[in-house]
């Protein structure tokens, strides 16, 4: 197992390499000049040139790339071109909110979606099935920000049950954290619930046709046990997979949710950085999210082995 983990991590290296190179080229080969953004309204070409020089942006691309990778290997993510702060610090400030939303969303979505999917599959073809599926498709068809505004309008402005926006660290007490986390989580969960419920249903339907489900029934145990003990555990692998691949979706959703609810997370940091051509920040962020993605998928593979004894590495 440990060996496997190690190998997987090693296998992730080329992936990260691809990401790094791609991001770097994408950023540097497309127009956009951080110097101009920095300098402001009356910058002369000479001044821009000098600023570029002081930022190291006029070196040849290869040199810039090597410098960056070299620093990266030494654990240095560089300094923001715009705010002059160390990138690592900027990211550090922003990680908690994003992780909070992501985790809350996943937890909520799983808690809601899996039972929905199971019920839909169990009652396959009945109106319950159609209702659940209709509901989940509906969740899939509304942009996150629309859902977000609706929730704010109703629960924060009209009913005043929760604050409109913002974020409080969970370390400063659960109450304020929870209050501010609940709407964004709901907004973001919508699409996720849809995704997971559908996947659960499909996987359950597959599994319900398997021989061992028939065996279980032939044993005379009750339907709930058949569903939970026999079907769901076997359906878990594709469901977990979709949770993993849905992670990319989640990251997109987080960006929007962070804007709507004004949550100072890494999603917005990246969007801002892209808009400002703050190369070191963008590079670090995309690398980081890719890394998270890789790690999440690694964890999911580990989860496979726990769920399904046939999968061994």
């Amino acid at each position, binding site marked *: 197992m440990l060996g496997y983990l190690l190998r997987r991590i090693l296998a992730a290296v080329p992936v990260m390499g691809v990401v790094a190179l791609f991001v770097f080229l994408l950023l540097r080969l497309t*127009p*956009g*000049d*951080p*110097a*101009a*953004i*920095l*300098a*402001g*309204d*009356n*910058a*002369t*070409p000479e*001044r*821009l040139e*000098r*600023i570029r*020089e*002081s930022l190291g942006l006029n070196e040849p691309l290869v040199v810039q790339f090597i410098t960056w990778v070299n620093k990266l290997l030494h654990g240095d993510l560089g300094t*923001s071109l*715009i*705010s*002059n*702060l160390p990138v690592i610090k*900027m990211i550090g*400030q*922003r990680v908690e909110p994003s992780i909070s939303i992501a985790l809350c969303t996943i937890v909520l979505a799983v808690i809601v979606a899996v039972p929905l999917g199971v019920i839909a599959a169990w009652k396959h073809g009945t109106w319950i099935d159609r209702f659940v599926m209709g509901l989940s498709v509906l969740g899939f068809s509304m942009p996150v920000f629309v859902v977000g*505004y609706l929730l*704010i309008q109703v629960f*924060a*402005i009209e009913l*005043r049950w929760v*604050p*409109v*926006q*913002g974020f409080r660290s969970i370390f400063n007490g659960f109450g304020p954290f929870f209050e501010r986390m609940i709407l964004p989580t709901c907004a973001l969960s919508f699409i996720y619930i849809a995704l997971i419920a559908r996947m659960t249903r499909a996987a359950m339907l597959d599994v319900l046709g398997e021989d061992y489900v028939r065996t279980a029934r032939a044993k005379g145990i009750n339907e709930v046990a058949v569903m939970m003990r026999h079907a769901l555990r076997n359906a878990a692998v594709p469901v977990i997979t979709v949770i993993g691949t849905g992670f990319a979706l989640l990251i997109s959703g987080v960006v929007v949710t962070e*804007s*709507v*609810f*004004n949550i*100072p997370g890494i999603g*917005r*940091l990246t*969007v*801002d950085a892209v*808009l*400002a*051509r703050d190369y070191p920040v963008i590079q670090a962020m995309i690398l980081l999210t890719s890394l998270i993605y890789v790690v999440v998928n690694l964890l999911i593979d580990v989860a496979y082995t726990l769920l399904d004894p046939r999968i061994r590495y």
Partner: protein
Amino acid sequence: AGKTLTAVMHSDLRIIDPIFTTAYITRDHGYMVYDTLVAPDSNFKIQPQMADWKISDDKLTYTFTLRDGLKWHDGAPVTAEDCVASLKRWAAVDGMGQKLMDFTASIEATDAKTITLKLKEPYGLVLDSIGKPSSRVAFMMPKRLAETPADKQIPEQIGSGPFKFVQGEFQPGVKAVYVKNTDYVPRKEPASWTSGGKVAKVDRVEWITMPDSQTAVNALQSGDIDFMENLPYDMLPVLEANKELKIEVLNKFGYQTLGRMNFLHPPFDNVKVRRAALLAMNQKDVLDALVGNAKYQKICGAFFICDTPFATEVGADTLVKGNGMAEAKKALAESGYDGTPIVIMAPGDVTTLKAQPIVAAQLLREAGFKVDLQATDWQTVVSRRASQKPPKEGGWNMFFTNWVAPDVSNPIANLSIGGQGKKGGWFGWAEDPKIEQLKDAFVRASTLDEQKKIAADIQKEAYEQVIYIPLGQYLLPSGWRKSLTGVLDGPATPLFWNVDKSE
């Protein structure tokens, strides 16, 4: 602990060196942390702030004397040397500063409290330059910081202003935090614009970034924040109905919005085509789309802002009346315009800049232009407008921007009206020796009347050559919760001194 004022500013603070960039938010940050030698009052009159001054009779020597009790945030006393270094750094990059330096023979610290500025010839705008209220402002900082090359950002935020910057809590794009500078000794005079006594009455000011104005409005309504610098016009009816809020325009002169063409590339290298474009424009449509509220918009043909000393309507005829379209069509037909599409950059992420390109595109099309409206974000506009390449290679033909009134209210402050071309000219690189001559004459003019006349001439020339197209003025309403008292108006920046908050 203590009183905390939470504000949402017009944009997020990311660059915190106020000399390094012209971004308004950085200027606002500057006013929190730094102080100026002199500053204008609400009558445009320059008043002493950190220093008092004397002018020699030949008008060639200005002597500034620092007042007592000034201290940097790190505890060191403010010295004349610090200020000289600060002035030099500022003058190296600011337009008016550069102009001032052209006339300056020397600037020295003659003793710990005295700064002596010697001119080569009399120059009427010395105090106006040093006290100018908008970007870039001549902020004072310790010498060790002021010696940072102007192409690099200063490493620390140490000023002598009424608030201190809390570096540890600074999260670009999220929030910036200031605490009351308890060592600050305000002037005795009442506060008036950026002059007078800057008395910090709250202990802490937090600027929160809210990328979405809708969110910010929600937050203001629900009391999450105390102050919002720019309210979206369309939300005003809702907000005005809210008894807990106060809505007011703090900057009475507002902003000028303008369109600028690129003089380097066809078709706008041809003055006839530029004229046709000018004729096609009208301020009403632009303002209606941008503001849509008569209370906050003002049709104004003056390049140097209506209701200011240099205001004149000369040459603004069709723009103001909105009746030039027929003429524009004719002019375009005669101009030799060959149908080259005009690349207009349209930023989608800044509310005060979204409407202009769209309206302009429509008007230009109506006049017979072919328009390629390219949607981007503002930062892209900012970096792309610096490109002198042809539109096909990443250049551009036209973009729009806004200036706060003081930044354009005289021909020297007004960056956009130069004629220096590629050599130091503003984006678009208009080359017009006549304007440069007139500007020169303007700075040498000794009386206001003379200046006014020259300003009118400049405006006439600017309209003739279509240096840029003023598209009207607008005011930005700010809003705050009624728990705030003593909110001051100002020339450009929202002021956080004198404001108190009741719990």
